[in-house]
């Protein structure tokens, strides 16, 4: 059975362009992770926050039961979508910027080794020191040693996805060092003993009332009359961190980009906490994923337009800082750059999936995603939630360690439409589902789950349905048409449909999954698109023409967001 399903699965690569991947399997590295399907090296398990302790459906089900969370998410993502739509509409060259942004990333990755070497040369020539870290543990120990060498016991930190990914705060704390998160949202998360839930606004799952409570509980000396007003809460954070900034001797940051030809690092921020960290301490340690390098200074002109408009709906974020090595008399005297792999090379090894490395971490795909809007970031387990997390986390860790994430999507295609660097997220999701199925089948896992996955592969291999499915939107449509088939699976597969906690087959949409898990005993709910609890609100009721439905959906969305 397993061998048979594998053979049928092989129909997928021809259509989705997986052909290059077999070449990859025989690639020079050969290291791979468990499964060994990819060149490069996935992030090892055991350190960092790239996967949760339970599959997405379990965590999502719990999140869906939290009405306060859902209200907070709906409010915040609705606000940001409207702002984004407004400032994006202002630029009549938005599409040209997106195309250029994509091309620069693609060109950079094709010569990534050269750009990294050049970056190292330029940073070093300007008085900085460059370190290389294969994985989270190595990066953490490099940073810990650098901090220890200063003799300091405390560190101020600028929000950074790379340091969240590797669990740097926990590693520094374990070494007896005190870490102060200084970004307001990170502070809220840290004080709330919480986990970040959004890549731009990590405390997005908290409303002002909850933030007030956290501050009252955790910040010594806060006036109990503190109002739950953003203005007052921001003032509280300012007062709380002021003295910390003024005395700090060591800072840790991430970087939004690094320019290879000039050795210039760039941090985009809003509050000025980034400037405080980048400017006042004597030692600055920047941890950056290797994919963040761009070849030329000019390339920043693209991302400094795409990023703020996509991330916070602003024409420009309040502060952007750049520095190249050490500048005598201005800012830190000791400047370090830690270049991090941690699964990026494994991601790079896939001819399609590598596009996930183009991500500029703007969060727009989270804000637009009907799944993210309802379950929030924690359900994804990884620090990278939402659509980008669903394609990035499984590639960084190897798909086995995040096997449920590629299914955490309705494949509606909205993420690809908003992505400022045009990442075709739905296609990569489908590809990862296929990869998961293939690994299962290679491992000869004789479970109902494997059978169900194989069934998905069998459905996907139907060339007639996939022939027209080139672009993301059409791909979503093709998969959507197929949806009803789950219930018509032949008997061996009914073992899966009977078990609602079994991982879903590749073709199941979020909506199906929702219906199944929300109303497990109500067979009607599953195919009733007008059910009041319709989670996506996107798919028009029984639209005869998907294109028309899609247009209508977009119009409705535009209306919502204007």
């Amino acid at each position, binding site marked *: 059975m397993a061998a048979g399903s594998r053979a049928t699965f092989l129909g997928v690569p021809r259509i989705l362009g997986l052909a*290059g991947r077999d070449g990859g399997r025989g690639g020079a*590295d050969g290291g791979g992770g468990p499964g060994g399907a*990819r*060149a*490069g090296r996935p992030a090892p398990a055991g350190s960092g926050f790239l996967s949760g302790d339970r599959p997405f459906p379990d965590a999502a089900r719990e999140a869906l039961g939290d009405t306060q969370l859902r209200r*907070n998410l709906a409010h*915040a993502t609705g606000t*940001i979508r409207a702002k984004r739509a407004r400032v994006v509409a202002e630029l009549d060259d938005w599409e*040209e910027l997106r195309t250029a942004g994509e*091309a620069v990333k*693609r*060109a950079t*990755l*094709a010569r990534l080794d050269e750009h990294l070497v050049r970056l*190292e040369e330029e940073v070093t020539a300007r008085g900085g020191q460059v*370190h*290389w*870290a294969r994985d989270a543990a190595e990066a953490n120990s490099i940073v810990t040693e650098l901090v220890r060498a200063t003799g300091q016991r405390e560190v101020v930190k600028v929000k950074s996805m790379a340091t969240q990914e590797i669990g740097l705060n926990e590693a520094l704390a374990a070494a007896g060092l005190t870490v102060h998160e200084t970004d307001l949202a990170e502070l*809220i998360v840290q004080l709330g003993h919480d986990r970040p839930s959004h890549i731009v*606004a990590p405390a*997005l799952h908290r409303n*002002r009332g909850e*933030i007030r409570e956290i501050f009252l509980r955790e910040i010594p000396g806060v006036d109990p009359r503190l109002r739950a007003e*953003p*203005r007052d809460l*921001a*003032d509280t954070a300012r007062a709380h*961190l*002021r003295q910390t*900034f*003024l005395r700090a001797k060591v800072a840790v940051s991430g970087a939004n980009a690094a320019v290879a030809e*000039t050795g*210039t690092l760039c941090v985009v921020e*809003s*509050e*000025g906490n980034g*400037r*405080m960290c980048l*400017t*006042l301490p004597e030692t600055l340690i920047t941890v950056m994923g*290797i994919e963040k390098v761009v070849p030329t200074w000019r*390339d*920043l*002109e693209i991302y*400094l*337009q795409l990023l703020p408009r996509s991330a*916070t709906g*602003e*024409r*420009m974020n*309040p*502060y952007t800082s750049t520095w*190249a090595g050490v500048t005598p*008399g201005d*800012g830190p005297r000791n400047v370090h750059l830690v270049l991090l792999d941690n699964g990026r*090379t494994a991601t*790079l*090894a*896939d*001819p399609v999936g590598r596009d996930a490395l183009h991500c500029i971490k703007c969060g727009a795909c989270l804000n637009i995603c009907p799944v993210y809007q309802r379950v929030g970031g924690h359900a994804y387990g990884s620090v990278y939630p939402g659509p980008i997390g669903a394609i990035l986390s499984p590639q960084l860790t190897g798909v086995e360690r995040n096997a449920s994430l590629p299914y955490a999507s309705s494949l509606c295609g909205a993420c690809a439409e908003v992505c400022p660097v045009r990442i075709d997220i739905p296609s990569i999701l489908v590809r990862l589902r296929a990869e998961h199925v293939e690994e299962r089948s290679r491992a000869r896992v004789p479970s109902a789950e494997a059978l169900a996955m194989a069934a998905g592969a069998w459905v996907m291999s139907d060339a007639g349905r996939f022939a027209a499915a080139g672009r993301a939107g059409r791909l979503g449509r093709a998969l959507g048409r197929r949806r009803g088939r789950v219930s018509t699976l032949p008997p061996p597969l009914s073992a899966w449909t009977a078990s609602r906690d079994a991982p879903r087959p590749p073709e199941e949409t979020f909506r199906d999954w929702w219906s199944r898990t929300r109303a497990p005993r109500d067979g009607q709910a599953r195919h009733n698109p007008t059910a009041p609890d319709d989670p996506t609100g996107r798919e028009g009721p029984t639209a005869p023409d998907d294109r028309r439905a899609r247009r209508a959906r977009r119009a409705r969305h535009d209306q919502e967001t204007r």
Partner: protein
Amino acid sequence: MSAREEILRRVRAANAAAGQPAPPRVPRDYRIGGDHPAGHPELVRRLSARLGDYRAGVVPTAGPSAPEVGAAVRAALTLAGVGAADPVLVPPGLPDGWCPQGIVDDAFAASVLGGFAAVVTGCAAACAETGTLALDGSPGQGRRALTLVPDRHVCVVRAEQVVATVPELLARLDPGRPLTLVSGPSATSDIELHRVEGVHGPRTLVVVLVAPPPPAFPPAREPRPGVEKRHQT
């Protein structure tokens, strides 16, 4: 094998595995130049409007001479809530007459910088479309901490420094210098994704726009309520 060698080897192996994709040509057919040359009155007007959107104050000068700039800086400090006796910080190299009462930075400690009511600086360039000021640490702007720690920042922008687009702005800047791009006062969107001005950086930003020689550009008109009063026209 060192981590460096191993990562570079992995990168090469991964690119080989992915079929050695060729770097595509980058199509730069987005807008590079703006609709007006640097310093055009329309750009100055646009910059002023954008700054208003960020709730930054804007004070135009009567003319380009140092005493006229100095008068506008005084007005800007007043607008920012700085009293006549409050200490004002200035960087070395600020043009004579822009801020005669300013105390020149002498490598003050951060805690000392926090004692100043305001800082007055020039800038390297400004971008009209995004309402962005660029500081590069050259004379008249000072090291980065100067425009960060004091709670109020008055920044003097000469009309000829104002360009239309982000690409034009970056083209004017030296990536080897420590740069700060400032678009309005410090702000956060972290609470329910609503923007609130004023967190760790200066909570008040007032821009002095140095008028080109007459005829002076028309004062910015801002339809938004609550912003008009910030403009001294």
